[in-house]
């Protein structure tokens, strides 16, 4: 293992021990934070008893739907926009400023439009992710060599077949960077929306536990969210690296 990795693990362990010490000596009081070993025990207890399985399944399911929608709409949209230069030039300022706009501010409006439920949450998750996917996919499409497109023309491929067999495979590493964004954003969108206002899901359970000083539920759920998000992201990053190395890009 590389020394940097060892150092990193060592630092995390040291931090945990420090927290453990601060909590056990009462420097951090019990209402604020429980000692880490209690949190771990609480996670095991929560997962074994299955008391929050419905909430976990709902949040992850909705995030998956939002992710899927963002990918489908994003890739299809990018292919469409890429073909028309004028459309792209008009939309460019939108893409440049999109992530500066607090999308969550639209959540109240979406609740009024769709009612409180899954629809506005999925809408927010998709909205957050889709532009990232569009921008990275177009970035990939820009790099497809002309010779490949000409080969497709000579072989008599139609638009769909060209996209399916030439441009999309070529742009795959770039689309994957977009997918990484979409995973992070769909989780942020769904959980954030549940947090602000909803009636079920992990975000809702965390805020409910917070309101009831129920640290035995709150901390395990928070850790679970962080672990799921971190793992998904690390997995995608590794896959992206493999693809990049295979292309000789990294």
């Amino acid at each position, binding site marked *: 293992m590389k020394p940097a990795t060892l150092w990193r693990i060592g630092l995390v362990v040291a931090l945990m021990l420090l927290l453990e010490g601060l909590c056990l000596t009462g420097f951090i009081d019990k209402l604020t*934070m429980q000692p880490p070993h209690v949190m771990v025990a609480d996670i095991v207890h929560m997962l074994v008893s299955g008391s929050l399985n419905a909430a976990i399944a709902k949040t992850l399911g909705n995030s998956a739907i939002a992710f899927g929608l963002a990918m489908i709409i994003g890739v299809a949209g990018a292919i469409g926009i890429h073909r028309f230069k004028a459309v792209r030039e008009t939309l460019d300022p939108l893409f440049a400023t999109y992530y*500066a706009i607090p999308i969550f501010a639209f959540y109240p*409006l979406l609740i009024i439009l769709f009612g409180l439920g899954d629809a506005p949450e999925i809408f927010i998750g998709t909205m957050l992710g889709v532009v990232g996917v569009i921008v990275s996919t177009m970035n990939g499409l820009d790099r497809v060599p002309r010779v490949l497109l000409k080969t497709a023309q000579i072989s008599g491929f139609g638009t769909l077949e060209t996209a399916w067999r030439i441009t999309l495979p070529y742009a795959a590493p770039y689309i994957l960077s977009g997918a990484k964004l979409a995973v992070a954003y769909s989780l942020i969108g769904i959980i954030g929306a549940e947090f602000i206002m909803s009636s079920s899901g992990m975000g809702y359970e965390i805020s409910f536990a917070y309101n009831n000083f129920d640290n035995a539920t709150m901390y395990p759920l928070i850790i679970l969210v*962080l672990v799921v998000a971190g793992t998904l992201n690390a997995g995608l990053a590794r896959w992206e690296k493999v693809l990049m190395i295979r292309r000789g890009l990294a």
Partner: protein
Amino acid sequence: MNSSSFRSLRNGAALILIILACWQGLYWMVGDVALRSPLQTVLFTAKLLASDSFWPHVAETATAFAVALVLSVVIGLAIGFALGINRFANEVFEPMLVTAYSIPKITLYPILLLMFGLGISAKIAFGTIHGVIPVALFTISAVRNIRPVLVKSGRVIGLGPFDMVTRVLLPAAMPEIFAGLRIGFSLTLIGTLLGEMFASQRGIGFLLMNAIGLHNIDVIMALTFLLTLFAGAASTFLLYLNRRLQSPT
């Protein structure tokens, strides 16, 4: 005015027109139950801006945002320069920063509330943890991309660490750092507003949440419109500065 800036102006105008048309179309479809037309929204926004009870909330949000932004930039630059200069420390910490960037930070908000208590300091802390990471990550990459000859010249002249940062590293890395500042700006704003939306008694985020409870569509539309306008305008301005920094002519 040269042709490229004319084109970008025309594109921006076309985009705004298209968005307004979509908005008006949606309003005709959905009706008064859930939406307001662009004209009604602008009129109500003007009324809101003229009312006295609105400004304390703006001041609250603006204060929290400003403090959080200053903290994000200062801490982010400090982390960025420390890790950008020290290769080994960067290898240890950068993966941690990247992971922290991608996690849904809103789940950490209850912990911050327990640590800081309800009030402006929790909002500031929440805005800061959103903004600090992109500033740090962009600064790291900016510092590492500085041409080595500049750093070597600095050493030859015998600059101390402080002079090195202010005279050599900062000016050389500025364009890329600025890109990070732009993202940090928007994320800090989003963080501050999210904090207000979840648990707060004052600020624009609180007004928005309050308006859902009262089903006050006028207020929701006006606030969303104001926030989008502010964020869009600020981002466009920063993007313009960024482009000027990158291509000094």
